[in-house]
């Protein structure tokens, strides 16, 4: 597998030559990673788009690294000429999460930024986009953060309808209510 990474190595080298202080890595076939500081990301993306032909933005993602108190932002861009995926990765402070707004480079980033702002609470100063995207009237912590406990939220917010509590054997309840006997062959599936 390691033998045919010529295109990938070349791209990694090109980026390395153009920018100081970034780390690039030809990871595997069709994939190159570039690790940069958050200030450098926009210039790397612009350089890749304008000079290297990485015209298409495939994806933008955010990962919560709770242990090291950081968010990782990943921009995945693709070139129609080299057919390579370039991952531009950066880490930002989790306590004060802020990232440069880049929807002027690719306007679909507007949608991604809206989602990441809503789900992780990352702010993009100067970014114009409707506040709500997926969630409606949400006032709690951003829900995709690792420290947001979904189960706790559900238990606090919703109640279970009477007779529909968790882990109830509905069939037995109905049988009991209507005074019917559960047949022997079905008794082994009983939960009570």
């Amino acid at each position: 597998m390691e033998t045919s990474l010529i295109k990938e190595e070349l791209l990694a080298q090109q980026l390395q030559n153009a920018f100081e202080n970034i780390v690039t890595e030809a990871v595997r076939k069709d994939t190159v990673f570039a690790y940069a500081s958050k200030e450098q990301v926009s210039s790397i993306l612009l350089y890749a788009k304008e000079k290297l032909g990485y015209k298409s933005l495939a994806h933008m993602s955010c990962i919560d690294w709770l242990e090291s108190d950081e968010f990782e932002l990943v921009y995945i861009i693709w070139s129609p000429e080299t057919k390579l995926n370039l991952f531009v990765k950066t880490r930002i402070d989790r306590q004060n999460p802020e990232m440069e707004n880049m929807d002027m480079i690719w306007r679909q980033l507007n949608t991604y930024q809206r989602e990441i702002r809503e789900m992780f609470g990352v702010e993009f100063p100067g970014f114009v986009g409707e506040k709500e995207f997926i969630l409606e009237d949400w006032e709690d912590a951003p829900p995709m953060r690792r420290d947001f406990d979904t189960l706790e939220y559900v238990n606090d917010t919703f109640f279970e309808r009477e007779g529909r509590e968790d882990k109830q054997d509905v069939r037995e309840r109905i049988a009991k209510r209507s005074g019917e006997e559960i047949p022997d062959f079905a008794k082994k599936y009983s939960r009570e």
Partner: protein
Amino acid sequence: MREKSTTLYLGPQHPGITGNMMVKLQLEGDTIVKATTHVGYLHRAFEKLIERRNWMQTTTILCRFCVPEPDPPEAAFALAVEQIEGREVPERGKYLRSLVLELARLQSFMLWYAGQSGSTGLYTVGQWSVGDRNYVLDLFEELTGGRIYHMYIWPGGVRRDIPEGFEDKVLRTMDYIEKRIDDYDRMMFDSAIFQKRAQGVGIITKEKAMEWGVVGAPLRGCGIGHDVRKDNPYDAYDKLDFEMGIFEGGDVWARARVRQFEIRQTISMIRQLIQNLPSGDYLNKMPNPMKWTIPAGSAYGKVESVRGEFGFHVVSDGSDKPRRVHARGPAYVHGVSLLEDVLIGQNLADVSFIMNSLGVCPPEIER
């Protein structure tokens, strides 16, 4: 009397899409001046759920990302996991995967026929194609046990081998469907109503298409030939003989022509896959699925669905659960930023028609 602009909330339930999504339209007469997408009616927090599931349990959630096309997410996830883990897929597994993916494309094309013709009032085509789609679903049922959700593609290969006599059934179904498509085309593409409604409507500019993140049939309908199966071939696609449908115009008509061309390519590919199906193993087995850990790393797996590139960004921290699985469906771009732009200047009656043509699938936008 001066005409004032009206605000119309179209949706969340309307015939243009599978799922619920609202488009807020600013109208002058019946011409759209501004469109804003509102999603959020189908948020099921799948990505959050996945953080609490182990790698194997994740596969049961993935197929639910997009109802009309449940297989591309499974395949994209499997590809990403294989990239991180370096797991090889046996040749037969690759062919079976491609077979399932192409069958999934076929059934999705048939749903598209229904949506596209139904939104112009040609309901007969829709009833035919949805009826005939059941023959493809029958094949899925026999192969995987499920008609809609299959959970068939696993990291490392596929879940089970094909049953006895399955090849013949597939070929017979293909012969039948191939004949039926000619009927659909006569009803739909030869219809003056459809031609008039589709031509010059919902235009995407060729110069901007690539940059705006347009993928799949809408991109090829702008005359730009990109297809994940050709550009970054996965599974058995590098061994198949097929062409991309590339048409100029960027309107609904061009996109329909692309799909009309590609459904036939899909049938030809299914035949090739059956004829050249190699023997051997179909799954490179993972260790005990409940204790299965993936080395730390990240990858982006992508496949070509009917609506375009479907990708998964998968991040592993080396544990038995995914750290982050983030989906990128074609509808994420097509249904929000692109749709809002394309709808401007269009007629109110064409909204669901255009949405269907772009392949907007709300369950995939909000997951």
